[in-house]
Structure formats: C-alpha cells, structure tokens
C-alpha cells in the first residue's frame, strides 16, 4: 500500500475522522456535555480547505486501486459538500443539543466523501450507507413532534430498500460483466442483454429512490417535515448533492442508450410536474421545500440524458446553486418554540416589515429556486436543458421547461406571504447564528450571480 497516496488523497476524509474522534474524546472527558459546534466548524473548515486545495492543484491518485481513486472532479465535489455543511452546522445551534448531532454530521459527510471517490460498488455501498445511517438518526434527533419518529422510520425503510436495490443491481451486473467495479454499470448500459439491463435499471431505481424521484418520492415530504430545520437543510443540500454527484461518477463517460431513454427521461419529467403541482397545496414550509426538491431531482436527473462531457459541470453547478439557495431560505425562517407553528407558511406573514434582511434573502432564494434570471438557479437550469437539447432530445427538453415553470406559482406565494402580508402583533425571533449562515451563503450566491463563468471554467 502506498501510504503517501492514502494520506494525501484522502486528506479531507482523514480530517473529518480526526475531528469526529476528537469530539468523542472531548465528550468522554468532560463532565457536562460540551458544545460541539466550534470543533465541528473547525473540522469542516479544515476538510473544506483541504478538498479545495487538492482540487485546485489537480491532485490525482489511487489510494486503494480498484476501490477508491481520487481526481480533481471528486475533490471539487467534496469541497462543494463540505462547504455547504458549514452554514448547515451554524443553523443547528439552538435546535440540536450536545456534541452528538455534530458527530453524526461529520460521519455522514465522511460517507458522502467516500461515495464521490468510489471505484467499485463495494465502496459506493459503504459510502451511501455511511451517508444515510446518521441522517436517519438525525431526523429522529429533533423529536419536536410526534412526526419525527414516523418520518425517521419511513426514511429508514425506504432508504434500506434503495440500498437493497443498489446491491441487487450490482450483483446482476457482476453476473453480466464479472466485476464489481462501477465501470460495469457503464458496460451494462451498452450491453443490452436482459441480465445487464435489469442490473442497470435496479441501480438507476435505487438512485431515483435516494434522490426522491416520482414514484419513489414518498419518503421525502415526511422526512423533510418531520426533521428539524438544520437536518432538513442537510438533506436538501448535501444528501441530494452526494447522491447526484455519485450518480455522475457512476455513469462516467457513458451516454444513455436509446432503449433506456424512456425510463430515464419519463420519471424525472413526471417528477417535475408532480413535485411542482403538489407543492402548491402545502401549508408547511418544509413540506413545500420537499416537493420542490422532488421537482429539482427531476431536473438533475435530466442531466444524464446529455452528453457525458458537460454532465459533471452541469450537475455540480446545479447542486451548488440549489444547496446554497436552500440553506439561504432555511436561514431566513423564523425560529419558534412551537416548531409546527413556526413551520407554517402563514408564520412568514409580514416578515419584511419585521426583519427586512431575512425577507430579502428568502426572496432571493425563492426566485433562484424558481429559475428566474439573473439568479444562479437560472444558469443551472439553462446548463442542464442546453445539454439535453444538444443531445437531440428537443421534445423532452421543451416538456421539461414547461413543467419547470409550473413551480413559479408556489415560490411566488412565499414571496407574497413575506412581503405583502401585514405584520401581526407578535415578533418573529430569528435563528441564532442564522445571520452568519446566510452571509456564508449570500457571498457565493452573489459571486455566482455576477460571475457564473468563473466557476464554470473551473469545474
């Protein structure tokens, strides 16, 4: 084994692990439960900078040949997720007590980083499980209302089903190609034999389940609503980014063969339409964001129809823009002792007259999620639909665009609540540290709004 490659190539992971172990030791040694936030933030910042540095210097290596290899694209993906985790951790202050939620967060991110470097289904499976298992606990950890446990169980059962489908697909691909390397997926795409096609479809279904695409979306609204705000932000921003970036790595250089275009285009298309329509009738903000995330999963999986060259760029830009917007929106939400009441859309009534800054950031987030120019959400959507058009699926792209603008209505409804309603008597308390979290998001959002090309050249 090459120790140097293992040390440098997995530096972000090592830092996360060191931070998590340190957190355990600190908790064991102190009498009162210590505050985990400073240590977690330092760990996240160190891992983020390490990933950024390795991506910028174009480091590539093979810490574990055949199982885990690293390249600049993988480091860029890791930097995206670790960077997004910093404002999410800031949101957790006041919601989740003690060092344990931060511990779970760090372990989950370790799994997310593994998936992006996975070279075989073995590593991919470990990474996805390590990404998901702590999140099941985190959904439960809020325990604000009776919904939390129910949401956690639904998420766990469907997440477990997705893992089983992924493994079954991997096993069938092993039978078809004789290897567990993720390259067997790309080989299976082109093979056209029944065994390989069944394997490919099972793996794709597993990713649709993890990414919440209709008809595999049933867990998302419940899990998003049942969890507390920081956990929902984590699921929306980072879990989704991890799943999608892992899918990009899985598809690799392979295009979608004509025989499989129908399922890979149709389900995301239905997802866009259904997600956007169902979001209209929600009265809970987090549930609305869940349906919006179902629609966005549809746009993201559209990227796989396009040519392999532009795929990573489009998906990475999209998950950056989408994750930033979600965290920005969640940072603007009012905090309240009664979580269910604070989560209602009506509680945003008259937000502008009381906390103008929060209302404006919420407005930016909603307009960008709706995909209106000049916000980054527009560029992100444009990149994906351009790739689909260039691949020759004009009809599918037009249908997708039409479905995507169904979403305008409910995003604008949030704005209507925040800006037009008159303030009722009571004050809306802000989240602690929410200002820091929203500033951390707002600066990259401003950069992406004015200089999207700068980032695209580097992806």
């Amino acid at each position, binding site marked *: 084994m090459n120790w140097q490659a293992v040390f440098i190539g997995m530096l972000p992971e090592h830092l996360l692990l060191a931070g998590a172990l340190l957190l355990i030791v600190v908790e064991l040694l102190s009498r009162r439960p210590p505050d985990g936030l400073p240590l977690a933030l330092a760990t996240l910042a160190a891992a983020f900078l390490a990933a950024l540095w390795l991506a910028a210097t174009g480091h590539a290596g093979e810490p574990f040949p055949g199982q885990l290899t690293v390249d600049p694209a993988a480091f860029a993906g890791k930097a995206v997720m670790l960077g997004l985790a910093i404002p999410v951790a800031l949101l957790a202050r006041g919601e989740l007590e003690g060092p344990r939620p931060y511990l779970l967060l760090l372990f989950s991110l370790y799994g997310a980083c593994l998936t992006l470097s996975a070279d075989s289904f073995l590593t991919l499976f470990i990474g996805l499980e390590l990404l998901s298992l702590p999140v099941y606990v985190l959904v439960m950890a809020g325990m604000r209302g009776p919904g939390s446990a*129910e949401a956690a169980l639904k998420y766990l059962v469907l997440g477990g089903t997705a893992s089983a489908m992924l493994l079954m697909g991997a096993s069938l691909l092993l039978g078809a190609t004789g290897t567990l390397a993720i390259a067997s997926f790309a080989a299976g795409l082109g093979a056209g034999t029944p065994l390989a096609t069944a394997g490919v479809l099972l793996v794709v279904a597993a990713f649709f389940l993890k990414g919440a695409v209709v008809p595999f979306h049933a867990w998302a609204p419940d899990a998003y609503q049942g969890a507390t705000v920081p956990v929902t932000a984590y699921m929306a921003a980072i879990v989704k980014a991890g799943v999608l970036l892992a899918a990009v790595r899985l598809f690799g250089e392979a295009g979608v063969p004509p025989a499989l275009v129908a399922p890979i285009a149709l389900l995301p298309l239905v997802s866009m339409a259904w997600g956007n329509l169902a979001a209209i009738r929600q009265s809970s903000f987090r549930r609305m964001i869940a349906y919006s995330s179902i629609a966005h999963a549809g746009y993201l999986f559209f990227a796989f129809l396009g040519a392999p060259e532009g795929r990573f760029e489009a998906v990475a830009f999209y998950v950056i823009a989408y994750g930033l917007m979600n965290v920005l929106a969640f940072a603007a939400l009012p905090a309240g002792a009664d979580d269910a009441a604070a989560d209602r859309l009506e509680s945003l009534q008259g937000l502008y007259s009381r906390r103008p800054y929060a209302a404006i950031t919420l407005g930016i987030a909603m307009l960008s999620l709706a995909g209106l120019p000049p916000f980054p959400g527009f560029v992100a959507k444009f990149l994906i639909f351009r790739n689909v058009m260039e691949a020759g699926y004009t009809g599918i792209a037009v249908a997708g665009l039409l479905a995507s603008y169904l979403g305008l209505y409910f995003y604008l409804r949030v704005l209507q609540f925040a800006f037009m309603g008159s303030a009722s008597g009571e004050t809306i308390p802000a989240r602690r540290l929410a200002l820091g979290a929203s500033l951390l998001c707002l600066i990259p959002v401003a950069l992406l709004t004015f200089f999207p090309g700068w980032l695209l050249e580097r992806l």
Partner: protein
Amino acid sequence: MAEQQFLLAASAVLFSLGLLGVIIRRNALVMLMSMELMLNGVNLSLVTFASAAGSTEAAVLVFLVFVVAAAEIAIAIPIVLALARRRGTLDAGSWTELKG
C-alpha cells in the same frame, strides 16, 4: 449450471417477496423483516455470482451487507419502540401525523 440457475431464481424470489412486503404490508416490524428479506436475496445472488466469477470482492461485500443490515436494524428498533410507546400500535397505516 442448473444449480446456479436455481439459486438465482431463489434469490430473485426472495428479493421480490421482500420488495412486495415493504410496499404492501403496513406493520412496521413486518416492513423491517421484508427489508431484511430483500438483503438476503441480494446475498444469495452475490454469493452465487461470486463463486461463478471467482470474485473475492463480492464475497467480502456479502459480509459488509450483514454488518450494514445489523446497523440498520439497530437504528430501526429504537424508532419502532418510540413509535409503539407513543401510539400503542405497530400499524403504519394508523400513523397519520404526516399526510399530504
């Protein structure tokens, strides 16, 4: 060869039964059992293909599946206990806190 086909058919049946159970059964514990059934179907097919392809990696994956399945259940059981205490039932259909 016939033996291999029989094992693969058995694994497909186990997997499908598990998937069907997760979808249609409403008892929380039965849903978890169905999830395990799916994973066992996977294990059987992994072992079969591993011995056919001579792949050690796939055999190692089988052990990892055991470990992860145990971890999943270790998380699931406390959640089910919390729910059963609160609601007095294991019927997922009667939990209507989250709908819509």
